[in-house]
């Protein structure tokens, strides 16, 4: 067996941090998927496509604003809204007619939407690899634990918790958030107290997709933006949501942490088989708790 680099404490620490920052992206994307799953009961396979659109939109916006710092920040802020716009159109035109259908239909429908969005992205942006440069403030590395740690990953470690807190405040402190929680459990009864559930669902869907877009925009500087990134993320996001507990935001956070950390520690322990580790973790969790670690709303 050919193990990776010699395992020092500092290497473990840095890999842990890299794993955690990767987990933040996974959390932002999968919390959106989980929210849509919890409130609307729609397993949105096209969620990954919206993440990909977020990344491509960030690329285009970044260029449109002339790159550099300003381009980066504007792209980061605006691309989630572009994705939210796409989601709103999809919801009002298609999804809102389908909520009462059975899950298999919804799965097939969102799968079709994933293929369509994938082709649309290909038509608009082509099959080339795109990349975004980070602004100067986030470029380079910082010495942490005797190794160097990319500043951008540190930035992700700050954004992730902020999104978690924001989502928590939204679902627990705002009226629309509380209504969304009620609608997740009993749609008809929310209707019967005089609330137009259709718009609540539209809002919940758009918010979930906004998070996919935000995840895409955030990941863009760390990878090559290209076709196919939708497939990778959607598999991971569904696994995370499943091990966390369907529709549970904290479950999505926990699942992302497990996924991200096992992935990066796997790279350290056994690089050739690194990809196996997070899936192994998923299997272990599901054997131990088949319905996910935290309470599922289903």
């Amino acid at each position, binding site marked *: 067996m050919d193990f990776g680099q010699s395992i020092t404490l500092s290497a473990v620490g840095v890999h842990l941090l890299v794993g955690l920052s990767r987990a933040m992206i996974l959390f932002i994307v999968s919390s959106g998927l989980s929210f849509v799953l919890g409130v609307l009961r729609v397993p949105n396979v096209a969620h990954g496509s919206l993440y990909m659109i977020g990344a491509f939109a960030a690329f285009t916006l970044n260029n449109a604003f002339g790159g550099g710092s300003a381009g980066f920040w504007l792209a980061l802020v605006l691309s989630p809204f572009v994705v939210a716009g796409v989601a709103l159109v999809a919801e009002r035109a298609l999804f809102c007619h389908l909520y009462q259908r059975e899950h298999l239909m919804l799965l097939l429908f969102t799968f079709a939407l994933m293929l369509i969005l994938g082709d649309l992205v290909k038509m608009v942006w082509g099959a080339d690899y795109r990349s975004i440069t980070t602004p100067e403030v986030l470029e380079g590395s910082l010495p942490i634990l005797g190794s160097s740690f990319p500043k951008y990953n540190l930035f992700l470690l700050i954004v992730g918790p902020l999104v978690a807190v924001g989502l928590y405040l939204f679902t627990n402190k705002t009226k629309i958030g*509380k209504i969304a929680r009620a609608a*997740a459990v009993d749609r008809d009864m929310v209707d019967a107290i005089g609330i137009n559930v259709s718009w609540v669902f539209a809002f919940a869907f758009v918010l979930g997709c906004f998070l996919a877009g935000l995840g895409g925009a955030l990941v863009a500087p760390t990878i090559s933006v290209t076709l196919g990134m939708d497939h990778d993320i959607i598999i991971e996001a569904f696994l995370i949501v499943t091990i966390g507990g369907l529709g549970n935001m904290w479950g999505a956070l926990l699942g992302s942490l497990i996924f991200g950390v096992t992935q990066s520690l796997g790279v350290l322990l056994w690089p050739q088989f690194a990809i196996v580790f997070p899936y192994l973790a998923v299997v272990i969790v599901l054997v131990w708790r088949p319905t996910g670690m935290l309470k599922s709303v289903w």
Partner: protein
Amino acid sequence: MLEVEDVHTYYGLSHILFGVSLEAPAGEIVCILGRNGAGKSTTMKSIMGLTPPRRGTIRFKGAVITGLKPYRISRLGIGYVPDDRRVFADLTVGENLEISERARGGEHAWTLSRVYEFFPALGRIDGRRAGFLSGGEQQMLTIGRALMTNPELLLLDEPTEGLAPMVVHLLEEQIAALRDRGLTVLLAEQNQKVALRLSDRGYVIDNGSIRYHGSIQDLRENEDVRRKYLLV
């Protein structure tokens, strides 16, 4: 206030209501008596738009509401208390009431503090999750939730089902108090005693059809009808 005329309702292919007609005049408590499965709840759901009738018309304050979405019907001034309670279990008592609030009805409108005044037991457990409440507390909460929408007509579907006699007595008093405040109530009940004490007029439903209707006096005296359609 409410006129239901020749309503036919289906669940999928099965025909549940066969030409139900009834009336609830303003300011009265009108009860629908019937056994389990007689069609009481379906009548309530048909009025609320949750199981829209396939035939027939429902008028509220003179306007036809058949075919409207439940949220529209609620906004017109009909409050709905379902038989299985259906509190929003993940939300606290206060949150359940808060999301139902619809300001209407001027200075006498129901607000959170008025509901807590009316049901003091709820005020004491404001922060508790609704899923952890007792049956009686959940029932008060569903009524409070309906009141928060400031309705003129309240649909109460078996409010006393499965509750302890003391709680039933308390609810009975509160329902009478609501009528005294000017609310019209359509009450579906299996519990004859409660319904006969509270109501001004009564309907007897069996197998999806109205078998009898009259003043509550008539119904009290007509033991034949009660034995035929209501005894288990």
